[in-house]
Structures are given as structure tokens and as C-alpha cells.
């Protein structure tokens, strides 16, 4: 089903058909779901599922080939003492590290783990469309099979929705069937839940395979109510079109508790179909070690020291 023909006016009139979001109500719902008590067997299931959903990420100016290689080793075997721990969902790096990451994964038993590249002048998105296209092309050429692009938040806030839409369409064209497209809304800059809902639908209508909360460079990032609103958006989009779009919260999810809360949100909002790394990812780095430590605790009955999990 075609929701919009891509013209400014048709995008605007489509987004106007969306139901508004009540801030107080959305926050109250997210807070209520945060009280779910996940114990014993369901906790273990949630920890292992969360590990398999992590986009293990390093996005620093100081990233080096050695750092990225270490991250890739960890992605393949998060816990070197226990090979029943699943591998992570993907490795997420800057463009120039894509090739290094791909080679290291391929050479170390991680052929099935995709490399995601942050693209389109990440994190600000302040570059010309030509540069953004080139950026994406370059990442794919180096082996990225997932592209995490940013939207032009300035254009969105200025009401130039056509510009935001067109950019996503262009990047999606480049991705084609070579790469999955995750569209980063940077919800911390969109501020209102109404904006988050509208931007989610705009991105999905333009061809996003995933909608992602944040770059990780802006706070607040993946707060539970923001993720709730995005999960409602993908659920409703599925009702409209029959197409399931993924959701990726990123930024600020550091503990097992945080991650389990995210899975509860998924379970009770979009539904169990989304409890799959194909449709839900968590962008994180420190989270993985906390999940591993909690898993060890559940297996052995006692907490291990920090040195029993590996540094990235």
C-alpha cells in the first residue's frame, strides 16, 4: 500500500492522519511496564535473547583497527568460557572500520554476523545529499550489510518533510538488496512524542527496514517511553501495510535491567513477533558485559568479579 507519493503535501497529509500521543499517558504506560518482575527461567531467556540482539558498537574518534578487531572477537564469542552464549546481532562501526571488522569476523568464525556502518554524515547528518550517498556507497562497498543512517533533524523540525523523506528514499535505493537500512531519528532532538511518532511513520513510508532511536551522541536517547511510541508505530504500520519494520533502541541501555525492560516493552506493545534479532536490536557496548555477568550469576549462583568478563 502506498501511503504517500513522496511529495511534501502528501507526506504532510499522511502524517496528519496519525493519532496524537499523550505525553503523560505514554510515560505512565512505560513506567507501568517497567514494574514487570522478570525472574528465573524467563530472566535467563531474556538475557540470552538480549545478547543475540545487541548491535555491539564502537563509535569513537579514537577507534583503531586493534580495538575493532577485539570487538569482533567478542561479538563472535561473548563469553570465551562458555560457547552456549549466542553471538551478538551485529557489529556497528564507522565507515573506515567496516572492512577491518568484516575481515576479522570472517576469519574468526563470525561470517554470519553482519557489519553495520553508521552513515550519511553520522551523527549530525549535516552534509549534502551527494556526500551522504557517497558515504553509504562506500560503506556497502567495504562490506557493510546494514546501514544506520541519520535523518536531517533540522529539516524535520523546519517542516521540510519532503527533504527528509527524499534522503531516506535515496539511501534506500543505494542499499537495495545489498544492505538493510536502519533510520536513526535522534529522538532526543525531536523532543516530543508526537514528533517521534510522525518521524517513525515518515521513515517507514520512505523505506526504512528498521527505525532507530538515537546516535548515542545525544541525551536523552532510548528512553522507555520513546521506545514504546516507536513500537506502537511499527505495530500500527504492520496493521496498515502488512509489513514488519524493526526497532533499534540505542544509547543509555547499560544494564541487564534496562535491557529486560526493553524486551518487556516489545513483548507487550509490538508483540512476540518482534522478539527476534531480525526485528529488534539494541545498540550498546557496555551492556554486553553486564548481561554476561548476570548470566554467570544465574548459572553459578554467585557474582563474578569484573575481571571474569572480557574488556572490549
Amino acid at each position, binding site marked *: 500500500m502506498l501511503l504517500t507519493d513522496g511529495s511534501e503535501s502528501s507526506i504532510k497529509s499522511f502524517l496528519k492522519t496519525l493519532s496524537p*500521543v499523550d505525553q*503523560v*499517558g*505514554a510515560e505512565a504506560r512505560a513506567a507501568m511496564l517497567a*514494574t514487570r518482575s522478570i525472574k528465573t527461567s524467563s*530472566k535467563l531467556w531474556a538475557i540470552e535473547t538480549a545478547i543475540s540482539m545487541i548491535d555491539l558498537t564502537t563509535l569513537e574518534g579514537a577507534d583503531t583497527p586493534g580495538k575493532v578487531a577485539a570487538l569482533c572477537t567478542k561479538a563472535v564469542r561473548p563469553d570465551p568460557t562458555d560457547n552456549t552464549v549466542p553471538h551478538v546481532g551485529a557489529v556497528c562501526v564507522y565507515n573506515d572500520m567496516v572492512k577491518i571488522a568484516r575481515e576479522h569476523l570472517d576469519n574468526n568464525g563470525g561470517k554470519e554476523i553482519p557489519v553495520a556502518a553508521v552513515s550519511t554524515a553520522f551523527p549530525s547528518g549535516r552534509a549534502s545529499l551527494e556526500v551522504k550517498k557517497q558515504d553509504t556507497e562506500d560503506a556497502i562497498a567495504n562490506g557493510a550489510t546494514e546501514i544506520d543512517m541519520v535523518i536531517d533533524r533540522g529539516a524535520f523540525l523546519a517542516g521540510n518533510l519532503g527533504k527528509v523523506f527524499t534522503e531516506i528514499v535515496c539511501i534506500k535505493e543505494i542499499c537495495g538488496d545489498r544492505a538493510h537500512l536502519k533510520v536513526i531519528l535522534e529522538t532526543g532532538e525531536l523532543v516530543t512524542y508526537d514528533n517521534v511518532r510522525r518521524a517513525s511513520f515518515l521513515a517507514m513510508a520512505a523505506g526504512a527496514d528498521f527505525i532507530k532511536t538515537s546516535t548515542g551522541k545525544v541525551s536523552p536517547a532510548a528512553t522507555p517511553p520513546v521506545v514504546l511510541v516507536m513500537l506502537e508505530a511499527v505495530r500500527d504500520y504492520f496493521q496498515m501495510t502488512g509489513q514488519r519494520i524493526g526497532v533499534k533502541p540505542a544509547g543509555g541501555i547499560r544494564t541487564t535491567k534496562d535491557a529486560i525492560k526493553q*524486551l518487556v516493552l516489545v*513483548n507487550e506493545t509490538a508483540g512476540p513477533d518482534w*522478539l527476534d534479532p531480525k526485528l529488534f536490536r539494541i545498540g550498546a557496548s557496555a551492556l554486553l558485559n553486564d548481561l554476561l555477568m548476570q548470566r554467570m550469576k544465574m548459572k553459578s549462583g554467585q557474582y563474578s568479579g569484573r575481571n571474569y568478563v572480557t574488556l572490549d
Partner: protein
Amino acid sequence: MMKFEYAPAPESTAIVDIASDYDLFIDGKFVASKGGKKFETINPATEKVLSKVTQATTADVDRAVKAATEAYKKSWSKLSGAQRGKYLYRIARIMQERAREFAVLESMDNGKPIRETRDTDIPLAAAHFFYHAGWADKLDYAGLGNSPKPHGVVGQIIPWNFPLLMLAWKVAPALATGNTVVLKPAETTPLTALLFAEVCQQADLPKGVVNILTGDGSTGAAIVNHPGINKIAFTGSTEVGKLIAKSVATSKKALTLELGGKGANIIFEDAPIDETVEGIINGIYFNQGHVCCAGSRLLVQENIKDELLEKLKRRMSMIRVGDPLDKNTDLGAINSAAQLMKIRELADSGDAEGAERWSPQCNLPEKGFWFPPTFFTGVSQAHRIAREEIFGPVLSVITFRTPSEAIEKANNTPYGLSAGIWTDKGSRILWTAQQLKAGVIWANTFNKFDPASPFGGYKESGWGREGGRHGLSAYLKGDFS
């Protein structure tokens, strides 16, 4: 089979210490009844007997009123407002300290989910004591006249739906304004009131200021008719409220009544739909629908009915029904076999009168009293399920076409306790609220309570207000209308 099954997460009952039987709390002590028998109180989720409590007799009521009168004369009326406030603060703090104990006990005796007792009932009960503690020394400035005077001894009869919270709504303003109290908790939920009696002892509240008598309707009648009581405060059914009003009419007793309701939850086409669905759930399935101000009539604009009901069904299928002590339970047990029969009878009348029933698939436990979350569509104003209070998790869905039709239907009831308005337009909220004949109106939310906010009804939903500055006037002499 769900992918993500939540393993059982039961709250431990080790924290509560339930005696095998209880006496009456009169004059600061637990004392044996004069001739009253004991009766059982059960856990409605398991039908297991929790304890035995006393059926207070007329002679017991008389003793309690004497104790309250003595306490009023000798101690309580001699204290300054600040000193009374000190006791209320102390009670509030002890309730907070013992919050988990209260929460578990309330859940066991009532059947409501621990999540609700933990997050709503007990914190709000403590909040009522804190709030009224603050008023105790400021009554001169409440706009209720110069040095307003208490009634003396007040008789209070409370329902089973929010046992401790209703106790707090009654006892806190009564004590803050300088009255002494004879209180009867509901027959099926006496245990938290008896635990509250222990809190009064722990707080060193002067003896006789609070007296707690367990029993059935006959104990309530003895309180209502006792000549030593100057004011009656009742929360419960409209039927019993009418009987009380008749009895009290021939006396000089002051009276406040908080009775039934058939609240309209009005959904306009521009409502924020996901939050509205949450509000509908919270309006009718909160506390198993055992809420006098429940949004039991859903008035939905016809052009969004299908979309809304589809979302509502989806959301209702996520409601977790079962063990009230499990921290993930959303809908607990119906409070009693009698109440379950009443809900079934009314729901069956919905089927018989031609409305269409819908409930999600849910596995109800074998033991105990259970009713699944339910709604009826095709309901007209003439159906019993649109007019009578069901007091259970049953919603009647009615459509409207224009705002004025919504108002007409919302007000077309003998009740007038609560209403909800869902729209993205601020001006429409204000317009609608002005037209509705209901004591409490929520906009884009439902079932939110605060001690500072007066609560009460129009028409057959009752007389007077509880909470806030307005609620104080019910416990002070004078005509403040």
C-alpha cells in the same frame, strides 16, 4: 505458547502475621465481644480461610461509642491542632514503614493484585494521613469559618473495594478536624483495618480516639442508629446509602454518602488513541472493576469505534489474570462469591437483552472467584448493563455521533460520580467538563486520585465530598454549602 513467558514472581507472605482470630478494637485495646460470634474471612483467590473476626453486637457498638465519647471529651478535644497533626504524621510514617506488610495483607484479604496494593492503595492511604496532618493546625484558615468545631464522635462505614484506602479517606480527615471515630470495615475485608488498629497503638494514639468494630450490616445499622454518634460517613452501595439516609433523617446526625456510579468514559475522534486504550483499561479493569468511579460506560464516537475496539481487544488480550500476589498480575480475584454472582447475573442480562459479549482467552484459576475482563458492544441506553452498576470488570460500549449526544448519554443515568474525556482539544475538554453532571471528571486520564482533590458525587452517587479542603467541611460543624 508465548516466546517470553514471565516466570511466577510471587510476593512472599512471610511478612504478614495473621492471628487465628481477632477481637474488637475498643478504647485502645483488643477486647472480646459481648455476645458476638466470630466469622471467617477468606482469601478470595484461593477460598482459604485467613482468620476469624468478631461480629460486633449492639452492646459492642455502645461500648465503642462510649470510649470514643470519653476520648473526645478527655483527651482528643484538649489537644491543639499541631498535636493532633503530630499523631497523624506518626501514623502516616508507620504506614509507610509497614507498607509491604499492608500491601500483602490487603492483596490476600481482598484479592486485588499486589502491584495495585503496593503502588496505589497503600501509598495513597499514607498520603491521606500526611495531607490531613498538615491541615490539623490550619483549620482556621481553611475558609470554613473562625475556629470551626468538630462533630465529636463520628461513625464510619467503609466498603471492601479499597479497604485500607477508604479507611484512610475517613479516619484521616476525622482525626485532623478533632473528631473521634467508630469505624466498621467491610465484612469480607477486615484485616487491614485490624492491622491499622495496631498502628494506632504503635503511634501511641490516645485510647478511644479510633475504635474498630468488625461485623456485617447489623453492626453498621447499630452504628448508624446510635444516639451518641453525631455524624455518619458511609461509602458503599446506593441501596444501603438510601437506608442510612432514611435512618439518619429523623436524627440530628450529619451525613456524607459516597455511593455507586456508572461513569461515562467519553472518547472523541481526535483522542490520543494508544493512551486512550490504556485509560479505558485503567478505567474499568483497575481493581477488577470494583471501583465506584469506574469508567464502566465507554462512550465512543462512532467513526472511530472499530479502530478503537480492535486496539482495545489487542490490549485486553495482554491483561494478566491470576494469582494476586504475583507481581506481574494485572487483574486479580473478584472479592466474594456474592459479588461474582452479581457480576455474572448482570453480564448474563447483557446477553439476554441482545448485547454482544467479548472477552480475551484467559485461563482462570480453578479455586477462587474469577471473572475475565469483558466488554459488551451493541449496548443501548435501555439495557441493564448500561444503567446498573456492575462493580466488576465489565465494560458497556455505547456510540455517539456528536459532542452533544455524548453529553446527553453520559448524563442519562441516576448516578453522577465520575466521567472521563479523551480528546486532543483543550477547548473541548473544558466545554465537555462543564456539561457533565459528575463529581469527578478526568481529562486524558482515568482513576487518578490525590488527597488534595475533593471526591464525591451528584444525584444517587452521594452527598458531600471527601479529600481536599472541601472534604474537611464534612467533619466540621456548620453549613458550608
